[in-house]
């Protein structure tokens, strides 16, 4: 008996390894319909609306996968698409569908569904990427050809967020954002959404009977959402849930100590694509436009303490080139250093002197130099405020408790310095390499978009239209030099992701973009022997 | 045998500096069909006697002495046994009948409930009996039964309270200051009702009042109290015709028909009683002896000079 189990486990592990390297290959394991994995999350679904609720959309992505997804290294790998090619001019993208994916209600998944999904998203969803509106999409058998008006090389970055949905269900729904249903939702991957119940705060995924790929071990995946991160973590530690997941975020670093105290969980640390930074308003702010000022601020920030306090030690001081070590085309630029005296000297040199000797600097007109600091993180915001005050700046502290109020101030350019974080997904978006957070010609809520320098925007445009290769490499090197030289923002630290691993389950696969809640992981996890 | 016998009753209340004596060494008896009036100024402790007999005094009150009803010692009865005595055997008519009735319960229910609880009859009969009594008291029974006390006049409430008591056929009725604050007409009406209690010869009335005239009209015997003590007792006719104690004389002199002559001075506070005879500061004939020693009750009067 024992041996049998053992063999099965080895088989599953072997399969998982195989799956990692070649998704879509056929194994022999079977789904245990009674087995359940429970995931705790602080991401609340407030409406059972596939398009209307952001969190719900994130949680259903594994059941209606996009064409491509992000793997554990941050590279793109196939999801619904088995493979894809791009023409050398960057205008024609061809995707071949993986035949494993079939709709859970028995309807075959066709290229027609993909076309419908892309067009439907472009038409109905306000925040869809601009290229979609002008793209021509054609199909042939199980291939989809996207023809673009302008070359787009970072297309995959956008495609990872566009779910491929069943045409026969959605074509009759005219206002997708208002459509509410408690399920089931037809899915195409190994799982489909069986039900969502906002009263019990539970989303239930069930194994897709039509799935042609390797069968997952768990027949049911339950996602339970809680009022706070703490409640979710304590539910996990208390054994109510098997693991923890939060969209766009790793395990809260302040609670990692608890994981280490628990014998059921271990904390796995992985370098993250996430980071935090301060950006300057280089568009309308007088000090923000002053390079000397920006450089001086770079010396005023205590990077070590920021890692220690705002990341609870789970982070690494960044360098001025901004892009985290581990991201393709990383460049070793000068490291950020903390030196109050240098900062003061540089501010003096920039003309911001404390003339009247009251400890606060005056601007070039002789008025008190007031710097507006925008933040939505209480802890980091307070630290930065303190650092700025230490070098003699008068800080007007604008704390907004939520993203929307933050966005309002940001859009109005009513700040000089703003604190912000870059998500793993955000790092890849737009022209990639965090450019979307700076370029003022992008759309999106969480980005500062604080640079309108034509040189920068041109560089971004070039990057997005350059295929991978040496050309791109030199452009990205140039980009990092721009960050280091022009200082549109200062990287505070690169995050280290912590993922709680339940030692009773094996086969964990942690994606760079979505953590453990990804299609590959759901297929590979199985009970540990 | 006497219906009610109170022997050597003393009652004291807890005060901020020691106990306050309200009633001291009172003894009295009540024969069937008899009306005994306890007379005295406000605060002399006469109402305390009534509450002591009914055992209605608040917790913390010290009650010494014995009270016998039909030879049964009331002081030793449990609360549930006492509950049987109250209303059915000994009942009480309070002053200000408007306040004695529950304002938010219909009068009918207030008349029916006690009868049912004492198992005198079932609810249906109780209603009929209540209506009968109300009618005999000259009230519109159907209206009253469905009315609330606040809808009734003082006079009506008085009759209703009387009805509530008489419906239980008690053997002793204690009327506590029934005439306080009433006008002459209502006093007359009340006297008629009270005198009807003793008319059968079975029920006794313990009348507690400050009003000598009411006592004169109703009582067979009169007991005069001053500062928690009996100062004089005797048959009503005799006592009224020839009062012995100077206080009794003073009370009679203060009646309007006797010239409205008030007793000089005020009753002392119970916490600061004078030495000797408690009445001596107000007594016209007091002497050295009165100031020093407390007189004993002899031949129905407590006075050194009589």
């Amino acid at each position, binding site marked *: 008996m024992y041996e049998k189990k053992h063999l099965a486990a080895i088989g599953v592990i072997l399969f998982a390894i195989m799956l990692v390297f070649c998704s879509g290959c056929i194994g022999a394991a079977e789904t245990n319909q009674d087995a359940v994995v429970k995931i705790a999350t602080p991401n609340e679904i407030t409406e059972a609306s596939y398009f209307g609720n952001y969190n719900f959309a994130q949680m259903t992505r594994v059941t209606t996968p996009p064409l491509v997804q992000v793997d554990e290294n941050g590279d793109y790998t196939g999801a619904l698409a088995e493979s894809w090619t791009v023409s050398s001019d960057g205008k024609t993208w061809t995707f071949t569908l993986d035949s494993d994916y079939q709709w859970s209600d028995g309807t075959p998944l066709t290229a027609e569904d993909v076309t419908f999904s892309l067009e439907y998203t472009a038409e109905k969803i306000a925040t869809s990427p601009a290229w979609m509106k002008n793209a021509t999409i054609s199909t042939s058998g199980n291939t989809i050809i996207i023809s673009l008006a302008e070359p787009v090389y970072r297309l995959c970055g956008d495609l990872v967020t566009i779910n491929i949905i069943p045409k026969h269900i959605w074509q009759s729904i005219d206002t997708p954002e208002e459509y509410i249903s408690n399920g089931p939702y037809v899915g195409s991957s190994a799982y489909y959404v069986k039900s969502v119940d906002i009263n019990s705060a539970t989303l239930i995924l069930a194994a897709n009977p039509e799935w042609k790929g390797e069968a997952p071990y768990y027949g049911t995946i339950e996602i339970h959402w809680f009022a*706070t991160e703490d409640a979710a973590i304590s539910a996990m530690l208390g054994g109510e849930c098997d693991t923890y997941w939060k969209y766009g975020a790793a395990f809260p670093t*302040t*609670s990692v*100590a*608890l994981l280490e105290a628990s014998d059921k969980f271990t904390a796995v640390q992985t370098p993250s694509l996430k980071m935090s930074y301060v950006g300057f308003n280089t568009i309308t702010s007088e000090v923000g436009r002053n390079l000397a000022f920006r450089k001086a601020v770079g010396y005023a920030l205590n990077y070590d303490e920021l890692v*220690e*306090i705002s990341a609870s030690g789970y982070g690494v001081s960044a360098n001025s080139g901004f892009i985290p070590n581990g991201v393709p085309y990383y460049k070793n630029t000068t490291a950020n250093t903390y030196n109050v005296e240098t900062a003061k000297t540089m501010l003096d040199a920039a003309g911001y002197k404390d003339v009247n000797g009251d400890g606060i600097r005056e601007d070039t007109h002789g008025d008190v130099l007031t710097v507006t600091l925008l933040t939505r993180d*209480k*802890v980091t915001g307070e630290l930065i405020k303190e650092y700025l005050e230490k070098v003699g700046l008068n800080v007007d502290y604008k704390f907004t408790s939520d993203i929307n109020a933050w966005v309002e101030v940001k859009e109005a350019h009513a700040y000089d310095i703003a604190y912000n974080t870059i998500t793993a997904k955000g790092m890849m978006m737009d022209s990639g390499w965090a450019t979307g957070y700076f370029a003022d010609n992008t759309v999106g809520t969480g980005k500062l978009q604080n640079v309108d320098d034509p040189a920068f925007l041109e560089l971004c445009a070039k990057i997005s239209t350059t295929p991978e290769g040496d050309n791109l490499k030199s452009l990205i090197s140039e980009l990092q030099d721009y960050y280091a030289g022009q200082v549109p923002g200062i990287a505070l630290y690169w995050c280290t992701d912590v993922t709680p691993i339940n030692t009773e389950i094996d086969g964990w696969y942690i994606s760079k973009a979505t953590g453990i809640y990804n299609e590959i992981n759901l297929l590979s996890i199985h009970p540990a022997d | 045998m006497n219906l009610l016998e109170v022997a050597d009753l003393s009652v004291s209340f807890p005060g901020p500096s020691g106990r306050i004596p309200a009633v001291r060494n009172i003894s009295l008896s009540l024969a069937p069909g008899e009306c005994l009036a306890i007379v005295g100024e406000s605060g002399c402790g006469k109402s305390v006697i009534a509450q002591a007999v009914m055992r209605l005094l608040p917790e913390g009150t010290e009650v010494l002495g014995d009270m016998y009803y039909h030879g049964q010692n009331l002081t030793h009865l449990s609360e549930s046994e006492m509950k049987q005595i109250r209303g059915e055997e000994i009942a009480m008519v309070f002053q200000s009948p408007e306040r004695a009735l529950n304002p938010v319960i219909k009068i009918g229910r207030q008349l029916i409930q006690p009868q049912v609880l004492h198992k005198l009859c079932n609810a249906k009969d109780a209603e009929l009996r209540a209506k009968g009594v109300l009618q005999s008291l000259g009230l519109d029974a159907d209206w009253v039964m469905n009315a609330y006390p606040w809808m009734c006049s003082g006079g009506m409430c008085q009759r209703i309270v009387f009805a509530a008591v008489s419906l239980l056929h008690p053997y002793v009725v204690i009327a506590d200051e029934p005439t306080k604050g009433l006008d002459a007409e209502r006093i007359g009406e009340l006297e008629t009702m009270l005198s009807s209690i003793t008319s059968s010869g079975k029920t006794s009335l313990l009348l507690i009042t400050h009003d000598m005239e009411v006592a004169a009209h109703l009582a067979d015997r009169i007991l005069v109290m001053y500062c928690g003590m009996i100062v004089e007792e005797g048959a009503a006719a005799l006592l009224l015709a020839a009062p012995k104690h100077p206080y009794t004389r003073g009370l009679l002199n203060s009646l309007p028909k006797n010239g409205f002559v008030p007793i000089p001075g005020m009753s002392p506070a119970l916490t600061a009683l004078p030495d000797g005879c408690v009445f001596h500061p107000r007594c016209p004939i007091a002497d050295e002896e009165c100031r020093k020693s407390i007189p004993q009750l002899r031949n129905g009067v407590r006075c050194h000079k009589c």
Partner: protein
Amino acid sequence: MKFDRRYILPLLLIAVLLIAAVFPGVFAPYEAAERDATYQAPSAEHLLGTDNMGKDIFSLLIYGARWTLIIGFSSGILAIIMGTAIGLLAGWRKGIPDEFLMGTTDIVLILPKIPLVIILAAYLGPSPWVLILVLGLLSWESIARVVRSKVIQIRSSNYILAARCLGFSDAKIMVREILPIVFPVIVPKFVLVTAAAMISEASLAFLGLSDPMMVSWGGMISDAFTYSGFLRGMWYWWLPPALCIILGVLAITSLAFIHERGVREVVQL
């Protein structure tokens, strides 16, 4: 009037809080912004440990008294001024002010205060002043009522009549003769409003509707809740401010209770 011994304990407690609020620097071992290692357990150095930013919790507790009490007392004072003025006017003048008072009573009573504060704070931005204004402006009605009835009761009394006959002006009579008499009845109302405002402040801080730069007890509890103080079992982080709120409110309300004898009024959230 004899001094009631039961006043001693609550008054002492309030005095301690007041002193802490006025001179926090004297008692707090550290400055409010001073930092050390984060998430420390209580030690001789940090009596109640340190919070997520490494701030000394004991010092924060002392600094927190200030805003909590300012909000409480300012609302109380505002309500007192409104209530006394309207009550005096209504009781003295009868007529329109009186009608107005009786008419607005139900309305002011019914308006759900917490949701109102929330909607105002959402529109106007989180600020202690919104809280003070709303709580102060919506809590005057019970004060106005007692003042009014007291004024009606005494306005016909002899010495007031005498004062009027002597030709004193209304204003003078009010200030000289009536205010001292209504004063005892408004004191308990004042403390009840104060207590209610302290509770409301703590509740709003929990919703994130208080100024983040303002150290208050409600804010500390909210921080402990947000930065996993509960999860880490750091009771010394959230329990002391919670106790401070409870004891502060208790001390203040018990003044009213003792004053009113019958425990009739309840603290109003």
